[in-house]
Structure formats: C-alpha cells, structure tokens
C-alpha cells in the first residue's frame, strides 16, 4: 500500500504539530457489485495507530464511511526528537507503515 505522511521536520517543545497522512486504499464498502454481478467483499482500513517516540498518540477506528484513499489530519504535542510512525491494517489483514522524523528544539 502506498502512503504519504507529512510531518514538519522541526518543532519546538510543546508545539502542537500537524500530521497529515493519505493512504492508497479502495475502502471497499461491501455494497458494490462488479460487471458480472459478484459482490465485491468489504475491505477497509479499520485501524490506524500513530506512535511518536514509540508512544501511541492517536488512534482511528474506521469503516466504509471513510472515503477511498483515506486522509487524516491530526495533531501531536512535540516533546523530544523522534519518529512519528503510523501503522494501519485492513480487513484482509494487510498492514502498512509510514513514518517521518521530527526534530524538537527546546
């Protein structure tokens, strides 16, 4: 799965830092039929977890009500320099990861 994560490279301790992530994924509803009348099975990224310096700071539980190629923008508070890492998993148990380094100045 292709994904793009955007986090500022630098921040000051205490700042609320914006994280943007977009993941290429159909978020199949399970309500669609192909040209042969076969139902396309539901397949969604149901869980996304963001860790910063190894600590969970954000979690999203999602369903087919989130648009295809899910996009999320959220915040985390800058503490120490570390990796901002998002991991996700879909209904077929396919997982992905995207991360970005955040340098924090005091």
């Amino acid at each position: 799965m292709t994904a793009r994560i955007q986090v500022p490279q630098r921040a000051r301790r205490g700042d609320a830092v914006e994280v943007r992530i977009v993941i290429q994924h159909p978020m199949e509803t399970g309500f669609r039929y192909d040209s042969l009348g076969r139902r396309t099975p539901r397949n969604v990224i149901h869980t996304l977890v963001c860790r910063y310096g190894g600590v969970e700071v954000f979690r999203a539980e999602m369903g087919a009500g989130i648009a295809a190629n899910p996009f999320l923008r959220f915040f985390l508070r800058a503490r120490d320099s570390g990796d901002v890492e998002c991991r996700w998993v879909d209904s077929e148990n396919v997982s992905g990861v995207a991360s970005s380094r955040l340098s924090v100045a005091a």
Partner: protein
Amino acid sequence: MNPPPGVDARTINTPEGALQSILNGAPVRKGRVHLNLPQVAENGHSVGMTVRVDSPMSEADHVRQIDLIADKNPIPRVATFFLGPESGRAEIESRLRLNGSQRVTAIARLSDGSFWFDAADVTVNELACLDGG
C-alpha cells in the same frame, strides 16, 4: 462493529444504537464540539470533514474520544478517534463517504467523562455507498 455489553446487536447499525453504544446512558450536551462539513456536496464519495473540540488538552482536561455518526449510512458509526493530552490539539480532518443527504453528528468524550456534541446537515446531490459507488 460489535456491540458492547448491554447493547442490542439488532440496533447497533441504527443511529440510535450507535449513539447508545457510545453514551451508554450518559447525558450529552451541545457545545464545545465544532463539526465542519459543507452544506451541499456534489457527491457522497468524498466529503471533507473537520471536527474540533474546545479543550486545553492538558493532563487534567482533555478529549479522550471523538465519534462520528452519519444517520443514513448503512453503518452509521463512521469513525472513532482516540486522543489524549499528547495530542496537543483536539482537531481532526478527514473525508467521509455519505449515502445521501443526512445529518452527521460528532460526539466528544472528555477526560471528566462528560459528552458533548455538534451536528451538521449535509445535502448530497449524488449517493455513495451503493452500486456504482
């Protein structure tokens, strides 16, 4: 989504069932939550949504959870976001898939256990979720 204990499995996929599974009988007040959606969306495949909660996001006073309910979606409970003091700011943006014109509700659970909500009505000119979506 599996219903928590005490919630009827037959109602979990109704807006009322979804609401009950979040609140579990607790009161919910309007305020503190700001849900931003367009009044009119060309189609329901991708509708921009921003939710923001007035909160200092400190150890003592922060948002724990934000739920989104879309009344007319086959599965109304669209998403649940988990936050904490390490979030810094209680603001989330995403894009929703909406099965027609409907009301979307955002419910925030704060660290003191209180629930707050905001709602927005969206007119969708073309459906999503169903065939051809």
